């Protein structure tokens, strides 16, 4: 089976229909999307539809719709966007602790029927305790994982089609649970479940309840044993990364240089106090220039933006051939999927489909 490629859905207002946006402008829009003046919290069906069609044409399988208090609800976004595009799938990110698992299943099943089964689920434990409390969730990091375990156990019981779901846990209790609306898809009876996080708890959750473990890209040598472990447990591994592709590596580095913040102390991750992944990100020290050694995990993996904006800004950088080589290398160690982001998203996904994906598919066919 070939590598599977997904993309991040841009924020509301981020997509420029005229395509006139530099990498820096697009990145700044993303960085500032949590400020009160941003248009990111508002649904943007025109922009999203434009992006989604471009992604479909580029050979992208799904878009990940992220969840936070700064954005529209991903269930509704996928439901609306799914009426406008007919091939693309939607990976809905959601946190446990926000609704009853039965309600969550009813919503997921309803969406599946409304978008012909094109939905998957990315469960996120939550990375900021302040944000969680604003939702009415007062549990600690480890307790949130224990709850997520129960949450998915109940969801999976519904999806297994048990006539009646009965569950008595510490966080959830269900008695004679029944939902008439089934998960509707041609080839599966439940959504794929991506569990994201870098902590041991997230890894264990991926094995017990998930279908795929989602984590940020690292150097292949470092990932190889982790990936092998997950694959042995029958779980796929999906890497989250940003893409910076130009005709030559030098040109790509020049763009990377332009993305470094003017204020070298800039940080958008101060609220992310309760996440292993963000703690790891904080250990990366800012470099003075894009080219400085501190910013590279290997020749193509650049972390220059990680100290400022967090681990998901880890960037695969290079020429189309270098990037295709790097993706194939991940495939060799057992990685199965990628969720990619770029600046600007629409132009980058088009470029990926035109310049990189054909090389990947060719190598897959000949290897």
């Amino acid at each position, binding site marked *: 089976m070939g590598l599977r490629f997904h993309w991040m859905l841009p924020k509301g207002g981020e997509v420029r229909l005229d395509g006139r946006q530099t990498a820096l402008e697009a990145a700044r829009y993303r960085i500032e999307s949590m400020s*009160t003046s941003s248009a990111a919290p508002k649904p943007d069906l025109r922009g999203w539809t434009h992006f989604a069609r471009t992604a479909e044409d580029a050979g992208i399988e799904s878009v990940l719709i992220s969840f936070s208090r700064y*954005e*529209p*609800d991903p269930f509704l*976004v996928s439901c609306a966007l799914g009426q406008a595009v007919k091939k693309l799938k939607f990976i809905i990110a959601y946190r446990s602790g926000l609704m009853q698992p039965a309600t969550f299943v009813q919503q997921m099943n309803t969406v599946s*029927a*409304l978008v012909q089964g094109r939905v998957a689920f990315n469960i996120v434990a939550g990375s900021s305790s302040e944000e969680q409390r*604003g*939702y009415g969730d007062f549990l600690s990091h480890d307790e949130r994982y224990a709850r997520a375990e129960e949450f998915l156990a109940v969801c999976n019981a519904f999806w297994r089609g048990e006539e009646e779901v009965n569950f008595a846990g510490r966080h959830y209790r269900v008695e004679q649970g029944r939902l008439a609306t089934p998960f509707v898809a041609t080839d599966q009876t439940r959504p794929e479940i991506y569990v994201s996080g870098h902590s041991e708890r997230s890894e264990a959750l991926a094995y017990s309840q998930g279908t795929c473990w989602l984590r940020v890209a690292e150097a292949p040598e470092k990932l190889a044993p982790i990936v092998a472990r997950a694959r042995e447990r029958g779980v796929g591994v999906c890497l989250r990364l940003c893409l910076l592709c130009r005709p030559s590596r030098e040109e790509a580095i020049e763009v990377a240089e332009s993305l470094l913040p003017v204020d070298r102390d800039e940080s958008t991750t101060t609220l992310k106090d309760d996440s292993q992944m963000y703690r790891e990100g904080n250990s990366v020290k800012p470099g003075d220039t894009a080219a400085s050694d501190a910013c590279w995990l290997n020749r193509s993996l650049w972390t220059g933006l990680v100290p400022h904006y967090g681990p998901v800004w880890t960037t695969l950088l290079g020429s189309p051939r270098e990037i295709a080589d790097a993706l194939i290398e991940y495939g060799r160690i057992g990685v199965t999927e990628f969720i990619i982001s770029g600046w600007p998203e629409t132009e980058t996904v088009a470029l990926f489909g035109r310049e990189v994906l054909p090389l990947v598919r060719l190598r897959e066919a000949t290897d």
Partner: protein
Amino acid sequence: MKLRFHWMMPKGGEVGMKTAQETSRVATTKASSPAALPDMEGWTRFARCAEDAGIESVLLSFSRYEPDTILVACAVGQVTTKLGFIVAYRLGLMQPATFVQQINTLSGLIDGHVSLNIVAGSSTVEQRGYGDFLDHDERYARAEEFLTVCRAFWSNNGEVNFTGKYCHVEKGKIFTPFQAATSTPLQAATSTTSVFAPSDTSEHSQRRRAGPEIYVSGHPEHSQRHRAGPEVYVSGHPEHSQRHRAGPEIYVSGHSEQAQHLALTQGSCWLRLIDTPENLSATVSHFRSNGVEVCLRLCVVCRPTHEEALAAAHALLPSEEIAREERGILSRSDSKTLKDALAAADSVGWMNRNLWAGLVPYYGSSAITLVGTPPDLAAAFLEYKKIGVTQFIIAGWPKLDEMMIFGHDVLPLIRAAEEQQEQ
């Protein structure tokens, strides 16, 4: 002010059904029922007909037998332009902040054409299947807190802090705003409905769409007195928030004292089953004087002559088997609404010349039916208007055909009479 008419959204597969009997609750809660699945083709057809018939909104009912209402409104709203969606939801299923984020997102995706019908839940068994183990009275106490939190989110741009028995929120903030409708031709015709165009800065319209002052007309100070419960700390900039952070209309349904109290404290409209004007008159005045509208749920059977209408109504009586099962559902429920309706059906049958409870034992509590000719029905609706009722949510058998009859034959008579009264 003109009367506002809404219709029940058919269940999945119902638009294609031929007989009333197929659409009964007993049939649609069977495992094999198409009601479990979304029916975009049927719903699109129905929604467009509703817009043509002069219907303002459709009510989407919530249960474990049906698709999720918030998502159905989102999908159907992509193919309609002016139809409103009254989304029924039970409380206890999600955190208020999450609910607000979903409703606000929905409002942005369907041009603000959304309002809420808050249902406390009528079946204890069904609630437990969702993980909700509170009893009837506790459910209402929670609803009070839940809506207080929701309205705090809707009324301001700042942080929401709330510590209650059932809900607890610390520095809550939802960035996606509620988008009020920018164009509702039907509502624009009325003077006290909830149009709030971004350019409209009149004090009147602002008051009516901002969270804590959601009351439709009347005396907000008075209503505020009813607002018991924990304190809500609200920070932010009120001038700013009133323009941009308005909330949806909230219909609270139920006949119990707790439901009425909840409608008065947190709702913009009390939704209840139809009864005779004499029986309703005093209660309706009470609500109106507290600034809360009253909306009646009913069914209609309209035919050119009274005899034809009666014959059509009687033809709806179904099999004994359905009757037995529906009676079982009604008598097992812990909802006062359902018990009241069954009692009406058993004791009187015809509540007046046009109002018939005869179908309740077969089709459930909401099947109290106005039966008659177009002039009969128009007169009946205007009679309710006289006592202060402002809105109706109607169903019929089949829903689509009866709605077209209503739009074509009844509504024009009502509008003509209203225009005459206004002159």
